[in-house]
């Protein structure tokens, strides 16, 4: 849904004012945020309101995520980033740059070596065949050898290539970290000047400094691309760093636009990605125009393909493989569970890992994890929480002291992952529960949508505390995950009402609080969550029911997203066209392949912060009083942190509040 348009209509001060004054007091939140709400309400300066569109405009260059582009306008962007690489590498140590080339060459050499091996084997067998031709069937079986080995070779080659690429990407990152910001910028300027000069000379290939350099840079961009979310992360680290200072000049800002994630409507890139892919996926034919940039595959074909290749994916650790399968078949869903499952699989993989000779643990393991991650992405796009967890893990690996033995390093990582799961997820949930329970009072009617693990814990804990409340579980097709939640809640003896999202406007009358889970909270306060959440939040908002979002801090992300189009996930379209167990109403059966029928099964949507009264995280509760947005340029600026770690920090928050929260979180 278009979240950009919606706030505007609501942001009319008059409407808002009326709404909030007529709101019954028992529905607004108790405690400090309340006061803040009212204090702002009494003084809505209309002058500032006028400034809001312009502010929105000035923000947009940063906020609007990479545009959907055809390959034509994509190429300059790519060229930019391609050139970004050599400057950062060359100044610190030109030697390392040439090293890179050498490494690449060596990598290729390794491929050649590995491919020569099976050839040798083939000779052996040929010799053997001639030797043992009298033995029955030996002559025949060699036929299949010829069939078999090319597969092995190509796989081996692919594996090496992937590792090589990952190696390079890590090196690229580390180099980037080493150089200071100023240095980098100077280099960029120099590079740009050089490029301009080259262009002036009329070279058809503007970036062709030398053949080798060009090929390396191309490689580097390529290698950086594959894990899209990670790429974004690394790029946005730099971006957030910048945000503190004054607004950077236009062209610099352009640099900091995060590398676009894979745009699936760009044919050439999709082709490239496909060649790398472990899981062969056939793309769905009829995709909705607006969502062509997102990956969508024929669900039916993936699983058998992957299954049959179980033993052929040599480098894949069984635990990772299992998790991938479970993602693909939908056996595990939900942000926390997916993240935990992935981390535990990595734990297993690290336990069984041993550094190959002539490699360092830090780099090889990072590459390994990278390949696992790209496998998991092929099974299902990563959630933001998983991206954060992976970033954490890679960070940990990079920071391992070199003096550690392999064994120690592995146990270190093992306990690091354990710590992450315990602190960032389990303990975070406990803290959230502690906070959220204070918002539940006797006689409340709580509404929840879907099945959020955090919300479930809140409800159960409140029930254990003996609070008297009723729960309305709102659910939606096709997943109907609310039923599972309902089953568990009823099992615990909680009074529940179950309804579908169609009836949300009817049931909302009796609700006093809405508790929602989130897949992620973005730095403009947008809540990225299960599709339908936005709808629930909006209805609640129009009924003046406070909406509380429970989200662990590890799910926060610096990205800014205004709509749910540019970044989303497409589910299996068949699930919405067919109703399982109801053969009699499958009217779409024959027509699902028709060219004029397009099915859209979105997984997530973005809820604008206007509709969220409060975000409950493990660092405290962030109140978003919606009306404040009207009078200030950025919505974030008006957020208030109620308490951090129990401390009552009830003051006007600094402009980048959530961003700060995120950086606090990552520095720990």
């Amino acid at each position, binding site marked *: 849904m278009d979240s950009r348009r919606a706030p505007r209509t609501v942001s009319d001060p008059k409407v808002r004012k009326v709404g909030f004054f007529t709101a019954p007091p028992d529905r607004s939140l108790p405690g400090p945020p309340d006061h803040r709400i009212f204090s702002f309400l009494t003084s809505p300066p209309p002058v500032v309101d006028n400034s809001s569109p312009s502010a929105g405009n000035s923000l947009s260059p940063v906020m609007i995520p990479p545009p959907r582009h055809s390959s034509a306008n994509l190429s300059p962007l790519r060229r930019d980033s391609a050139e970004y690489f050599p400057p950062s590498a060359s100044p610190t140590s030109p030697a390392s740059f040439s090293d890179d080339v050498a490494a690449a060459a060596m990598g290729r050499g390794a491929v050649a070596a590995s491919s020569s091996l099976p050839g040798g084997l083939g000779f052996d067998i040929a010799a*053997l065949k001639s030797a043992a031709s009298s033995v029955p069937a030996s002559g025949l079986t060699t036929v*299949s050898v010829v069939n078999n080995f090319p597969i092995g070779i190509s796989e081996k080659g692919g594996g090496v290539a992937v590792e090589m690429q990952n190696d390079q990407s890590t090196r690229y990152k580390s180099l980037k970290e080493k150089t200071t910001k100023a240095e980098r910028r100077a280099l960029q300027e120099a590079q740009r000047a050089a490029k301009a000069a080259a262009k002036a000379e009329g070279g058809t290939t503007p970036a062709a400094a030398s053949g080798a350099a060009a090929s390396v840079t191309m490689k580097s961009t390529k290698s950086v691309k594959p894990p899209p979310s990670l790429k974004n992360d690394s790029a946005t680290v730099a971006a957030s760093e910048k945000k503190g200072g004054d607004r950077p000049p236009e062209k610099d800002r352009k640099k900091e636009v995060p590398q676009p994630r894979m745009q699936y409507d760009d044919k050439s890139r999709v082709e490239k990605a496909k060649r790398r892919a472990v899981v062969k996926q056939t793309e769905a034919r009829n995709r909705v125009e607006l969502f062509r940039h997102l990956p969508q595959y024929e669900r039916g074909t993936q699983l058998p393909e992957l299954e049959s290749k179980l033993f052929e994916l040599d480098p894949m650790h069984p635990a990772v493989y299992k998790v991938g399968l479970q993602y693909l078949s939908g056996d595990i869903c939900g942000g926390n569970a997916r993240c935990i499952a992935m981390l535990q699989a990595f734990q297993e993989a690290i336990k069984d890992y041993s550094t190959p000779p002539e490699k360092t643990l830090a780099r090889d393991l990072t590459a390994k994890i990278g390949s696992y991650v790209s496998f998991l992405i092929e099974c299902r796009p990563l959630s933001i929480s998983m991206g954060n967890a992976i970033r954490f893990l890679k960070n940990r690996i990079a920071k391992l002291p070199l003096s550690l033995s392999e064994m120690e390093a592995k146990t270190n990582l093992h306990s690091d992952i354990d710590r992450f799961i315990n602190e960032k997820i389990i303990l975070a949930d406990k803290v959230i529960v502690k906070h959220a329970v204070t918002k539940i009072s006797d006689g409340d009617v709580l509404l929840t949508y879907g099945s959020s693990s955090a919300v479930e814990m809140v409800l159960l804990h409140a029930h254990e505390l003996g609070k008297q409340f009723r729960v309305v579980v709102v659910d939606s097709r096709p997943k109907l995950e609310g039923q599972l939640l309902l089953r568990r809640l009823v099992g615990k003896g909680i009074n529940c009402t179950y309804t579908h999202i169609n009836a949300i406007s009817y049931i909302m009358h009796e609700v006093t609080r809405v508790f929602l889970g989130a897949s992620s909270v973005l730095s403009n306060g947008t809540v990225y969550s299960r599709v339908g959440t936005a709808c629930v939040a909006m209805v609640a908002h129009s009924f003046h029911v406070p909406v509380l979002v429970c989200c662990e801090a590890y799910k926060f992300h610096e990205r800014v997203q205004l709509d749910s189009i540019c970044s989303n996930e497409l589910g299996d379209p068949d699930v919405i066209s067919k109703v399982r167990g109801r053969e009699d109403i499958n009217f779409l059966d024959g027509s699902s392949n028709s060219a004029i029928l397009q099915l859209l099964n979105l997984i997530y949507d973005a809820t604008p912060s206007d509709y969220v009264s409060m975000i409950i995280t493990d660092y405290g509760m962030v109140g978003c009083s919606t009306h404040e947005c009207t009078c200030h340029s950025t919505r974030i600026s008006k957020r208030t942190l109620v308490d951090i770690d129990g401390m009552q920090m009830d003051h006007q928050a600094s402009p980048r509040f959530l961003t700060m929260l995120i950086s606090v979180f990552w520095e720990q």
Partner: protein
Amino acid sequence: MDFQVVVLAGGTCKKLLPLVSKDVPKALLPVANRPVLSYVLEQLELSNLKDLIVVVEGEDAALCVGGWISNAYVDRLHVKVAVVPEDVGTAGALRAIAHHLTTSDILVVSGDLVSDIPPGALAAVHRQHDAVVTTMLCSAPVSGPTESVSSGGKDKIKKPRRYNIIGLDPTKQFLLHVATGAEVEKDIRIQKSILRAVDQMEIRADLVDAHMYAFKRSILQEVLDEKDKFRSLKEDILPYLVRSQLKSEVLLNGVPQAENGNEKVNSQNNQAAVSRILANASTPSFHDLYASSNKGSTLVRRTHKCCAYIASESKYCQRLNSIQAFSDINRDVIGDDSHLSGYSFSAHNNIIHPSAQLGSRTTVGPHCMLWEGSQMGDKCSVKRSVIGRHCRIGSSVKVVNSVIMDHVTIGDGCSIQGSVICSNAQLQERSVLKDCQVGAGFVITACSEHKGESMARK
């Protein structure tokens, strides 16, 4: 991939007499001129499973099989051959090699399986559900043994045989009931508890157990140790595991809990929270629902999962466990499912080795195979048959729907239909064979006529 593969190659199977002999154990019976075992081994090799244990019954057979493997697969596969005494059964064979098994999961494949189903699919299902046992089910042989011999008129009256009776849950992932062997003919007895837990069970008689299993090693070994009466995987162990899936007696997850014993309560709580989040997020199978359904009592019901992988209809899957199956498989491998054989067929859909000699006006029809050094006289006709190496076939011989192994001599004017003739056999002039099996080295006198007989040297 953390799977150990055990290939049960069997010994000299009684059911296949007179085709098998001391020199040719069941595993080495030629299917389209390749030992049947090679089909399994190559399928495994394709899946990158190169570390195998081949279990053979009987010393002699083991020597033969071992010799053949070492010749054919040196440098390609890492094969260990284990010898077990004859008649220990499949369970006994596993029991004998149990101490060699180390990985967490084990893939057990029958050596007589001719199939193009990737074993990875089975393993993936096994892994995905964390099952105790996963079995491969395939649809019963399509053309069926009955109509395979086109001229076998009396066979046609027989009803198609039922091999297994299998109960599945509505999602077709879990195995709820298995009846094999003699039980198939009896009444079906289904446990109430299972039926109550699942609500709905699908009973299928058109599926066959393909004898490819994935087991959880710890469970398998425990069952093997405790139930020393169990002889067969298919008839004892699998039904036992399926029967007891809701009141599991086997130890599950015993090990990890012991490890955590001395850790703090706090971390255990966290672990519980982790597992709860994971459990809540996944779609519960009926096992989970059943286990959690008895509130009140402190006793936790222990369950384990028995999964089934149902191969798609387009895949070929058949076991060479009877003479009938032997002819069927030979027919299919050179016929409709020729991709299994690994040979490239000529434009006429047959294979004639360049060194084979054909007399004038001799026709070799489609779906035939004529191997190296064989000679045929004039006016012969071969249809849908396999002829091995160095056979000498006289003039005016008709071969239809038959398998002729190596070094067979066939006199002029013979007619062979639907028969299997083993190596070194000799057919003198004008003998007529119909649906017969001729053992190795047997001599059939001139002008004799046989129908539906099985002949072997005493």
